[in-house]
């Protein structure tokens, strides 16, 4: 670069102070598109776990204790990439502009979303949050071709009450009755 291109002085607006006001940045705000702490709307969240499997920094933890399922969001692991907000099928995650997160090491902040889990109608195993099933049902209703919608939704009503293992068994019995020995092995 030619030295004549360089400005003599870095220009700033008249009345604009050279130093940011105190506390710096908290009043001046953040630039457009700034990604701060992700915030989860606990009413919209169906605990599907998409954010947990997509998070590149393993910041969302999936926990299930008995009948309660939890998604724990660890602030100290988050890299603020916004992937969770991008993939969330319910649009429950939003990137806030909160960045003033310094804290004492003893007290790590974390956010928890929890919900009661439904039991399988056949074997009684806890497997999924009812809200998630409703969300999938709604999605099927919206996206399916009208010619097969009725059929699929009728099946869905039956299968959504079963855990994945029982669902597989039920389908097997229905399509190949008596052909295979059911049970054992599998997941």
């Amino acid at each position, binding site marked *: 670069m030619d030295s004549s291109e360089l400005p003599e002085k870095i220009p700033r607006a008249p009345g604009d102070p050279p*130093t940011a006001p105190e506390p710096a940045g908290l009043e001046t705000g953040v630039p457009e598109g700034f990604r701060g702490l992700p915030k989860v709307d606990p009413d919209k969240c169906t605990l599907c776990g998409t954010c947990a499997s997509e998070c590149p920094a393993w910041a969302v933890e999936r926990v299930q204790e008995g009948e309660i399922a939890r998604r724990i969001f660890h602030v100290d692991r988050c890299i603020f990439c916004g992937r969770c907000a991008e993939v969330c099928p319910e649009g429950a995650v939003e990137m806030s502009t909160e*960045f003033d997160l310094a804290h*004492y090491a003893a007290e790590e902040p974390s956010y928890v979303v929890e919900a009661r889990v439904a039991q399988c109608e056949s074997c009684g195993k806890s497997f999924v949050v009812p809200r998630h099933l409703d969300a999938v049902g709604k999605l099927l209703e919206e996206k399916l071709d009208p010619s097969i919608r009725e059929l699929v939704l009728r099946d869905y009503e039956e299968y959504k009450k079963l855990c994945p293992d029982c669902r597989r068994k039920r389908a097997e019995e229905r399509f190949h009755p008596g052909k295979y020995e059911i049970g054992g092995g599998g997941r």
Partner: protein
Amino acid sequence: MSASLKRALKVYRLHAGGCNNCDIEILALLIPRFDAERKLGIEIVHSPEDANVLVVTGPVTKQIKNMVLEVYEQVPEPKAVVVVGTCGLSGGVFGGGGVENYAIAGPIHKFIPVDVHVPGCPPKPEAIMRGIALAIQKLAEKASAKRNSAKDASLG
């Protein structure tokens, strides 16, 4: 502030294998716009023996682990440790959430006691400034505890 500090805050910055972005944000903290040297009275020192606050960035690679411990030993008591950036806090993309990584020995709280966490990837300079302000409080408490124990020893 309940306890007072008798020395200026002298910061030694230690880079422990991160991507350097947090270090660039610490650098941004020292420019006239944020002016941490004037606002908080901190001073960057170039030897750990002169420091009382250690600012660490990066996930602590296996190569640099012993160097980190050596530097921590050299900082005189009372001292405070501020970890800046998600890598230093948990491992971040280099193995956060307890995921094993062949090259990483950290995160840093496995080896040395950490006082303040500043999450962010990288954190904004304002957040780092808040972290160092929290460290002042911690350091002042440690300094007054040390003074009191010295007084007790001289009396008893």
